């Protein structure tokens, strides 16, 4: 593990920093052993690329997601800032989904609902030849004139990366001229094999150019690195006399400025929070709460106790834990009766999946399989308390079919055949429609906070009951839907066969 380097304008991508992989097949404990979290966290380097995990990549791939999209859903969701996409119009199509998410997120958090503020520079063929810094400058001026933003982010794109636009110099000049942060975010889709690098790119820019360097502290303020999920932390933290500073989505620029003044930083998912939380500790002395993630009793207990320790509120935390255990346990007992005998499956981002499996096991739901979109063998702090996969295995047991597949639907088919779940938990589009055609209902988790903490166990149990009722719809559809895969593929037992035997495509 190297230190986070905020002097460079470009963020170091995940595969180089953490050894992230996007294709793997085996058991959870095998993946954990091969990840060797502790060794990696203490800085081992077995070869020039860091300790590389082998990756089961084959010749066939389906469309995935890119880093720029994560920049849109993070930097684009800062309330009084503007994001400029320096790109052809196609990247701008992302404004549509992220606007919908932004509007619903604003409503969920009680903010005024309004359209997302993203401007596309609309690059055309001649710009590819002659460059388009003039258009970038114009769009920055347009952003300033239209919205008087408190900060302007500039996201790069595959074409601007390839033609080598000098975005940094334009940003620097405009920052001086306008007197607000103008922040380049390097997020070309081809730069990293996994989109989560886009989270880091946004956070890197914020850490470099927005976070205040002041030494002032607010001892009751806690940074919560999250997306747009419902506000479950304010009432929880009130019990400990703590206030929440939500970042990055839905934050204002001043919320971002005060990141350095907080007493602690927490995250609900290390995939998302790893970079910023570690950098805040390293560069600004804001301690990161290093603990298992707050899912299930074991995870939530440990997470709260660590938060109590870091913010010196141990006693209040203990009272809360006791009170909440007593409150939710009867509800969970009731839910368990209704959920008895069910098999679940989790298909989400990496650390989040670990947390959700914990909650399912807490509800006595069998989880034999999971698909994660990527795997980070270690998180940025390198601290073993954040070893979320290790925590899952230690406290909640093995997951026999544990696979990394970057939203590859053709593989998901085989994985479902192997595990045959009654329902799946899912985030990100593309996999649930396939499950549905197989008669398996999916609970799409748009509100990422739904499963957090003690109440999260109850929430998730109820959400599962609700979606199981949808099964009637999916069973009906199953009889009529045609899958796009050839019989040869549908009959394969191993969804990773082409990675292991690429020569099969010549047969």
């Amino acid at each position, binding site marked *: 593990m190297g230190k986070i380097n905020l002097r460079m304008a470009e963020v170091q991508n995940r595969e180089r920093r953490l050894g992230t992989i996007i294709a793997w097949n085996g058991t959870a404990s095998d993946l954990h052993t091969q990840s060797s979290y502790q060794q990696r966290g203490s800085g081992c380097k077995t070869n020039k690329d860091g300790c590389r995990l082998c990756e089961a990549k084959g010749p066939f791939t389906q469309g995935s997601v890119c880093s720029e999209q994560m920049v849109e859903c993070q930097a684009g969701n800062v309330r009084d800032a503007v994001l400029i996409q320096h790109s052809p119009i196609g990247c701008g199509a992302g404004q549509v989904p992220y606007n919908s998410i932004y509007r619903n997120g604003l409503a969920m958090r009680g903010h005024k609902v309004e359209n997302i503020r993203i401007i596309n520079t609309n690059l055309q063929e001649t710009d590819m030849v002659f460059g388009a810094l003039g258009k970038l400058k114009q769009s920055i001026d347009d952003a300033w004139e239209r919205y008087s933003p408190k900060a302007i982010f500039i996201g790069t794109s*595959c074409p601007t990366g390839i033609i080598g636009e000098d975005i940094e110099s334009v940003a620097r000049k405009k920052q001086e001229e306008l007197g607000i942060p103008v922040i380049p975010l390097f997020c070309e889709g081809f730069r990293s094999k996994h989109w989560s690098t886009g989270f880091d790119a946004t956070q890197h820019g914020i850490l470099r150019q927005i976070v205040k360097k002041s030494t002032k502290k607010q001892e009751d303020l806690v940074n919560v690195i999250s997306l747009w999920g419902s506000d479950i932390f304010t009432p929880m933290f009130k019990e400990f006399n703590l206030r929440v500073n939500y970042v990055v989505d839905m934050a204002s620029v001043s919320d971002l400025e005060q990141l350095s003044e907080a007493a602690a930083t927490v995250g609900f998912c290390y995939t998302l929070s790893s970079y910023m939380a570690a950098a805040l500790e390293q560069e600004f002395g804001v301690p990161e709460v290093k603990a298992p993630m707050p899912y299930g009793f074991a995870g939530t207990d440990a997470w709260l106790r660590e938060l109590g320790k870091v913010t010196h509120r141990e006693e209040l935390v203990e009272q809360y834990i006791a009170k909440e255990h007593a409150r939710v346990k009867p509800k969970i007992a009731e839910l368990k009766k209704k959920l008895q005998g069910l098999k679940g499956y989790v298909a989400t981002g990496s650390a989040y999946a670990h947390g959700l499996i914990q909650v399912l096991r807490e509800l006595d739901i069998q989880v034999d399989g999971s698909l994660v979109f990527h795997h980070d063998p270690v998180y940025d702090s390198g601290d073993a308390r954040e070893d979320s996969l290790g925590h899952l295995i230690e406290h909640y047991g093995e997951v026999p079919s544990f696979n990394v597949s970057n939203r590859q639907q053709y593989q998901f088919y085989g994985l479902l055949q192997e595990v045959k779940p009654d329902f799946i938990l899912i985030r990100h589009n593309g996999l649930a429609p396939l499950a549905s055609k197989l008669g398996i209902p999916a609970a799409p988790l748009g509100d990422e906070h739904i499963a957090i903490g003690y109440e999260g166990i109850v929430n998730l149990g109820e959400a599962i009951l609700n979606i199981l009722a949808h099964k009637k719809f999916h069973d009906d559809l199953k009889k009529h839907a045609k899958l796009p895969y050839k019989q040869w593929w549908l009959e394969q037992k191993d969804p990773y066969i082409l990675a292991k035997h690429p020569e099969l495509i010549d047969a």
Partner: protein
Amino acid sequence: MAVTKNEHGQTNSINQVRYGCAVGALYSVVSIPGAVPIGHCGPGCMDKQYTSLAFYNGFQGSGYSGGSVSPSVNAGEKEVVFGGEKRLDELIKSTLKIIEGDLFVVLNGCIGELVGDDVGAVVSKYQKQGVPIVYAETGGFKGNNFVGHEIITTAIIDQYVDKYTLNKDHREKGLINVWSELPYQNTFWRGDLSELKRILEGAGFKVNILFGGKSGGVEEWKTIPHAQFNLVVSPWLGLKTAKHLEQKYNQPYLHIPVLPIGAQQTAAFIRQVVEYAGIDPATAESFIEQEEQEYYYYLEHFNDFYSEYWWGLPATYAVVGDSTYNLALNKFLVNQLGLIPKRQIITDNTPEKYREAIAQEYQQLAHDVATTVDFVEDGYIVGKLLRETDFGHKPPIIFGTTWERDTAKELKGKIVEVGFPASYEVVLNKSYIGYRGALQLIEKIFTAAISASA
């Protein structure tokens, strides 16, 4: 280089995009039953086009070969530095092994075009082996998905239809190829195209509708050269394809700029096509009579509401959207409902050469009603123009997109989402055109107008 502003203050900047890029035409491929797109592009390109065009636009869905099904090379640093031809080759080979399809369409994106990958060379190897596969140069900087759509239709015609159609010189009287709405971009394209097909069949034609559930898929495309003529029903989209077919197969085309909505427009439309085709008008006339009987049966009942509703109905409107829907709605709203046009904005980046002819159509909406139209793509300017419009003493109806929700609220008006993106509409087979669509449109407009009144 300094950027110049146009008369509305539009620069290069685009807020609130209203179309995808040329690669977005992968959804034109998805909309042909049996066809499968293959993206030679970055990892996020296909997902962006999916989530915007097919998901948060009426939640139309990915269907057989869209969404996460579509193969993509997901180009990384290696392909950027060393080129991506080898990677594309193995992707095509493995796609043929895994995915069931009647036709594969390779779309080259920004990365492949910029690093100079010879996608044609890779694909032609498969073509020579008899694989039904074509390629198209659809780099995102080439233009929007309207442009991409015609690049793709031309590619399929030239590289597939031309090769596999038997008896290309054979013409069948009464068979028409229809080129109209842009699939997925037009939120209601599926319902609209099936209504268009129903109307034309009712009038006595055989119809190659080419896209959507009523299309015969790739097999139907192979009969394109057999059609008596091409019918372009839109202000401009499809003209390029029709002209190409004219040159290629000496196949004539009829251009009707107004997509018909309501009884008047639809009857006029049918008569124009019948006359052009030179077929016996008897079938068409009896179809029109039958349809009008049904249509006016409903309007007669609607009349009580329209003339007696106590709590007021909107009188003025604005339309923001693609040229096809924009013009069609205007003709209908003015002529059938007697509403008053106040601001019309076309957002599809209509090629310059067609703009004047389209503007002329707005000059003759009815014998006594004329209006002007603005061509704007930047949502910020759209909002500004709407707010500057004098809608009179009653709040207007805004026919627009999700982007207009905030402005409609500010104007205290009603929003009816009729185009990309329609993120607060769920659309299955809804149609707003022809006879049946017009009735649904009336229901939608006035439900929106009165549902919030108490």
